[in-house]
């Protein structure tokens, strides 16, 4: 068991594919088909390009506050790739690529940050919860979904995300304890990107690792190199299998780094050195994954160039479609609060329509 071998209290961290793109734990290299590996890479690249362009769109005044994911693609796609179709993904707010891999369309993902709730209405067969902004709360939702899976005799596993900062919220604790007590089939991923806005991981909590917090709940915990898609995949896969077998939750800390700002409103130069960013740039998950794929003979620079161009076009086109959606119809801001609109909401809606009508004349 990886969680036994990589004991966070013994300062062990799982890396399979290191930053040079070499396999450092041969026996742990997951057996993934070429197709699967390429799918993972493509979504990571799509996430990267969409992220960079998202920031540009925002700078052009075409998008609102946008949460930046650059550098965290492996911690997202590595996880999503280990899930089965029937499993649930319960995100926080910085899991752009995980959502894409799990079936959110790029248009939907953009639409949300563009300022439209429809961006959280994923397609019928896509089991993703909406982006959650109130840090910590999503974890208990994940636990409840897992409990329901258990109670209803389904075999769905739930994967949920939180940031390093989020581990300080009370709900982190309540969710992990609940999951352990009810033996819920949940995998908790901490995306430790070293910052909570300006506040560094090292000050957020006094523990050496975040993974060791698992000990407070009597569940397995493991720290993995979050920029290594294979390590993330392997740890998640094991955790999902354990959960599916009925052996309860796991806590995975994926150590990664946010190469961009916190959001488009943030100025990271206030709180961190360029040097630090440069050092982490060398650990970029996309670079090492591409090297790996190339060394396996699955991928080439030429193919990569072509894909980059294709995806860039696709992203631009998708965002244009998003921009065409325009404003939200008035009715929509009223009608989704209840299955049926109660009289006072009908009244407010009608009154406002009457006002709009009158001022138009």
């Amino acid at each position, binding site marked *: 068991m990886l969680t036994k071998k990589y004991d966070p209290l013994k300062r062990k961290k799982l890396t399979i594919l290191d930053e040079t793109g070499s396999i450092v734990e041969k026996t742990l290299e997951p057996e993934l088909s070429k197709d699967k590996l390429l799918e993972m890479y493509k979504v990571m690249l799509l996430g990267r390009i969409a992220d960079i362009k998202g920031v540009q769109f925002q700078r052009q005044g075409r998008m609102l506050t946008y949460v930046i994911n650059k550098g965290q693609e492996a911690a997202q796609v590595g996880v999503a790739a280990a899930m089965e179709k029937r499993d649930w993904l319960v995100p926080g707010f910085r899991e752009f690529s995980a959502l894409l891999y799990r079936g959110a369309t790029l248009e939907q993902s953009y639409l949300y940050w563009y300022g439209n709730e429809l961006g959280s209405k994923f397609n019928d067969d896509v089991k993703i919860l909406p982006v959650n902004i109130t840090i910590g709360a999503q974890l*208990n939702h994940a636990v*409840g979904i897992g*409990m329901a899976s258990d109670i209803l005799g389904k075999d769905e596993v739930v994967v949920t995300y939180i940031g390093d900062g989020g581990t300080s919220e009370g709900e982190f604790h309540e969710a992990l304890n609940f999951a352990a007590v009810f033996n819920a089939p949940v995998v908790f991923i901490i995306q430790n990107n070293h910052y909570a806005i300006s506040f560094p991981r090292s000050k957020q909590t006094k523990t050496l690792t975040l993974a060791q917090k698992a000990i407070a709940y009597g569940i397995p915990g493991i720290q993995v190199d979050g920029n290594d898609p294979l390590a993330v995949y392997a740890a998640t896969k094991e955790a999902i299998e354990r959960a599916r077998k009925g052996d309860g939750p796991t806590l995975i800390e994926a150590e990664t780094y946010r190469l961009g700002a916190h959001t488009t409103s943030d100025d990271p130069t206030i709180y961190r050195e360029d040097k630090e960013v440069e050092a982490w740039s060398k650990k970029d998950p996309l670079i090492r994954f591409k090297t790996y794929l190339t060394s396996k003979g699955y991928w080439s620079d030429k193919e990569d160039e072509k894909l980059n161009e294709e995806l860039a076009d696709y992203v631009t086109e998708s965002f244009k479609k998003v921009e065409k959606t325009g404003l939200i119809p008035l009715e929509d801001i009223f009608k989704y609060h209840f299955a049926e609109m109660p009289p006072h909401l009908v009244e407010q809606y009608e009154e406002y329509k009457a006002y709009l009508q009158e001022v138009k004349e």
Partner: protein
Amino acid sequence: MATLNNIQAINQTLAEQMEKDPKVVVYGEDVGHEGGVFRATVGLQKKFGSKRCFDTPVSEAGLVGAGVGMAVNGLKPVAEIQFSGFMLPAFNQIVAHVSRMRNRSRGKYNVPMVIRMPYGGGIRALEHHSESQEALFGHIPGLKVVIPSTPYDTKGLLTSAIQDPDPVIFMEPKRIYRAFKQEVPDEEFTIPIGKAKVVKSGTDITVVAWGAMVREVQKAIKTLEEEGISVELIDLRTISPIDQTTIIESVQKTGRFLVVHEAVRSFGPGAELIALVNQHAFLSLEAPPSRLTGFDIIVPLDKGEHHYLINPQRIIYEIKKIIKF
């Protein structure tokens, strides 16, 4: 037809709905094995097993938050908060999630959850065990808030709440959990959420109350009627959404209005009713619409609580003042 008190009515309703719909799960602190500190869930774990009725750790945000997830994944969670004062640690879940999942996901997910909680004073309890927080919930878009005042209503309203496709905060006036009994049909029936009930019709003044206050008003009415004052009593039943029609029609008839509630006065539920009465029945008013409420203070511990609690005498005093205006 059995004669039940409020707690028994809750217990019977939960059992009935669990029997009928395997998706209903009942849970909370001490809810499973013990059957709840007020015994509302006694016997349910035995009957339906510990997957359908279970205890949770002491963790209100956890249990409400897990309820959101259970609901999203196909269950109908009926959670108990031991006392309404202890919903505060779960307030983020209630306000930011229970009430919002449907709108946030544009209808893809909904949270047909019931959160039961005993509320209100009059049981000589410790701090945080006596508050009335219905206005806090009423102010939150996406929630329904229901308060029964009799065993019959408890069954009818709780049945509706469980079957409702949206989240319902079900506040139970603990002071009358066992205060009296009433005949309650053995078979399932529902009372619509969002409809008030004219408990007694009258011509001089409209009094709106809910929960434990309904009985206090009824006691006051006995005296008042002897003195020739005719009171129309409306049991609000649903705090949100408010049944404006029933109230407005009554005020248009009586021309006078009093709301009686246990909650503190400022920014309380009474203010909302007065605002609605103004909006829709202004020209019928013969006296200022008024409120008789808890003071704007923390509910005192037992040796001071009697001042806080509203009794029939104060209701009579207040009604006479309005009539005399």
